C-alpha cells in the first residue's frame, strides 16, 4: 500500500509538470518575441524570450488563467506581443475588410450575371 501511494504521488507530479510545460509551450507559441524578427517567444532563445517563458511558467504554477497571463503581458508590452490580434477599434477594419470585399465581390458578380441574362 505504501509503495502504491508513493508511485501514485510520483505519477500525479509528473502529470502536473507535463501540464505546466504544455501550457507554457502553448502560450509561448502565441507570444511574439519583440526583440527578434518573426519568431515566437517559444522559438527564440533571446534573454527577452527566456524571461517571458519563465514568467509564463511561474504564473501557470500560481494557477493563473491564460487570460490573466495574456492580459498582464498586453498591459506591459501592448497588443503586439500576441500573434492573434484582439478585436479593437484600431484594427476593426482588419477584421471587417475581408467580409466587406466578399460582399462587394458577390454584388458585382450577381450584377454581371443579371446583365448578361
Amino acid at each position: 500500500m505504501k509503495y502504491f501511494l508513493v508511485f501514485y504521488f510520483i505519477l500525479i507530479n509528473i502529470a502536473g509538470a507535463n501540464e505546466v510545460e504544455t501550457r507554457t509551450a502553448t502560450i509561448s507559441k502565441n507570444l511574439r518575441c519583440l526583440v527578434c524578427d518573426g519568431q515566437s517567444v517559444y522559438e527564440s532563445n533571446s534573454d527577452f524570450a527566456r524571461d517571458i517563458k519563465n514568467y509564463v511558467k511561474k504564473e501557470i504554477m500560481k494557477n493563473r488563467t491564460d487570460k490573466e497571463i495574456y492580459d498582464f503581458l498586453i498591459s506591459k508590452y501592448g497588443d503586439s506581443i500576441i500573434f492573434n490580434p484582439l478585436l479593437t477599434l484600431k484594427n476593426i477594419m482588419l477584421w471587417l475588410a475581408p467580409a466587406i470585399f466578399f460582399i462587394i465581390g458577390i454584388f458585382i458578380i450577381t450584377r454581371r450575371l443579371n446583365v448578361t441574362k
Partner: protein
Amino acid sequence: MYLKKEFKIFILLIFFGLLFFLFYYSLYKTKDFEPKVMIGKQFPNLTEESLFNNEILNIRHISDNDLFVVNIFASWCAPCKVEHPFLMKLKNKNILIIGINYKDTKDNAKKFLRKFKNPYQEVLLDYKGELSINLGAYGVPETYLVDKNFKIIDKQIGPINNDFVEKVLNLR
C-alpha cells in the same frame, strides 16, 4: 456610358494607389519598440534584494517625494557603459536614480560601479528578469522617468543621452 467607365477606372486607380501607399508605408516603417505602452501608467510596486546589503527594498520607499529615474543596467552590457556619464550627470544635478541590476552577479555589478562610479541611490537585483517584465522592459539599458505620484512620464529604450538629461532637468 464612356464617362461612367472612366469614372470606374479612376476609382480603381485611387483604391490601388491607396493600397500601394499603405503597404509601402508599413514595409518601410521603422520597427521601433513601443515605449509608449508604459508611459502614463503607475510605476509598479517592485520589491527586491539590494545590491549593497541583503535588505529587501521597495522602490516606492526609496524615492523622496520628487521626480526620480529608474535605470536597468548590467555589468556585461556595453551600451550601459556609453550611457554611464549621463547618469553621473543626472546624479550630480541631485536627481535620484534607482538602479535595477539585470541578470548579473553581485561581484560584477559592484566592480562595474567601482570602476565607472556609482550614480545610484539604491540598486535592486533582478536575477531572473522578473522586475524588468513588470516594467515592460525589452532588455538593457532602459530608463524610466517617474514623477512624485509614481506615474511613468517617459521611457528610454537603449542608452540615454544629453537630450534625456535635459528633459529630466527641465521637468524638475
